[in-house]
Structure formats: C-alpha cells, structure tokens
C-alpha cells in the first residue's frame, strides 16, 4: 500500500522559508501571492494490512513534530 504523508507547518508558526519564496515570486513579477508555506511530502510503501492506528503513530512518533507541524495521510487510491 502506497501512502503519501503531507507534513505542513501549523497556522501561527512563522515560516521564514515560505516568506523568502513569497518575496522571490514577487521579485519575478508574480503579483498577488499573499502567502507561501513550505511543507514536506513523504512517500511510504507499507504492508497492505498496516492499520490506520499504526500509520498515525508513525506520523506522531517520527514523521511530524506535532509541536510545530500538522500531517495528513493520503492513500494511493485517493492519490491521482
């Protein structure tokens, strides 16, 4: 089973990399970019019988730091 784990910064956590990207887009002439936030995409290939609970624990224990980050799990059948 293929999974995509999308890790994003929580609202309210400053993202200096996102700000730098936003400014760089502005300097390239792309107006109207109100904000940019940088996250991570982690692709996992796990055994088909891996439980939702185990996947959630993988995210909580390692893949995301829940002090600053949120995560979302996408299964391959729901990934285009």
């Amino acid at each position, binding site marked *: 089973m293929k999974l995509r784990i999308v890790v994003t910064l929580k609202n*309210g*956590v*400053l993202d*200096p*990399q996102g700000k*730098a990207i936003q400014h760089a887009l502005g300097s390239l002439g792309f107006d109207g970019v109100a904000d940019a936030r940088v996250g991570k995409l982690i692709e996992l290939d796990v055994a088909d019988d891996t439980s939702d609970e185990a996947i959630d624990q993988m995210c909580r*224990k*390692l*893949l995301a*730091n829940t*002090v*600053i980050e949120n995560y979302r799990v996408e299964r391959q059948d729901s990934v285009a």
Partner: protein
Amino acid sequence: MKTAVVVFPGSNCDRDIAVALEQVTGQAPAMVWHGDTDLPDGIGLVAVPGGFSYGDYLRSGAIAARSPVMRAVVEAAGRGLPVLGICNGFQILTETGLLPGALMRNARLNFVCRDAPLTVANATSRFTRGYSEGETVTIPVAHHDGNYFADDETLDRLEGEGQVAFRYAGVINGSARDIAGVLNAQGNVLGMMPHPERRVEAAHGGTDGRRLFEGLVEALA
C-alpha cells in the same frame, strides 16, 4: 564525578565537550555510541553534544531522538539524572519531548556562527549556578536551526516557572522571547543553542563557558 557523552553519526562537538568535562571533573567522560541501549553505571551527568546527527535528515535531531541510546537517556532523565544538550543536543532533547518547544530555521535563514552575548535568566539551577542572575556572558553560537518556538501558553509557563536559563542579549536567530536555553520543569535537563564547551580556556577567547561546567560539577559533587 563520572560523566558520559553520547555520540551520534554526525556529532562534531563530542570531543570538545569531552575535553571540557575532563578539565573540570578530572576524569575523561565515557563516550556512548548511539546504538547502545544502556548508559554507563554511576554517572552524574550525560551530555548530548552539538553537530549534525544523521545529517539533520527529516528535522534537526529527529532521527537521533529515536535512537536506542536516547531511550536510555529519557529514562535516566526521568529518574533525575542531569542531562545537558548543546546545540544539536538541544534540538534532540526537544524532539524526545524532554524539553518543550522546537528549534526552527533561523528567522533570516542564514547559518549564524558568531559570539553571542547571553543574559543569564535563571542562576539558581544546577547548570547555571556559576553565574549571577541578569549577568551578561559571551558564548559562541553556530547553528542553522536555533529559532526557538513554543506556543504562548508554554512560553508564559517557562518564564513563570524560571525555566528560561539563558536569553540572547540581541537579535541572533529570531527565537521566541530571545530564548537561548531552557530547563525542564524538574530542573535536571538543560538545552541550549550556544556552545559553552567552546569557551573553557583563555586560548578560546574567554572562559564564560567553563563556569557552567564548574558550577555544575560543584552542584553535583
């Protein structure tokens, strides 16, 4: 006093802190490899050194925090063993949950390598008793991810409970409330981004860092 220094693949301040600890304790610390599952018996302090453990993959300190030896460190800290994390060691301690908050990319995205003036915010802990409260000391920083973050409620609690050990006396990396070092609630775990082990001899340009180790050894004697 017997001490131990944890060594990860990518640690690069392990030998510096070993030298500093040997100078103040008179005994070379035990160097403990990340794959070990136990800490040596009879130690009075374990240090988690600076560097780039596991290449900073995923997040700085994230992989190291899940290594076998850190499980032993977390357990020992729970029993009251003093734990000192410096730079990457601080990042690792936050990733284990021993310390609150997280260390994020510096606000200006640059790697900061310079002497940093620090204000001693709490001089009553076993780690900081070699200083006086409110005193300004100079200790170098060298990091890319030193921008301390915690939610406001946590920051208020840290300040209210005296868990802020050091603050930057100036803008260094964008840290919330200029926090450079924090203690856990029990006071036996300190994490700090500045490197006291790089200021222990006159030849280093000063000995402000040595006072941390001397105060600690006195407290633990």
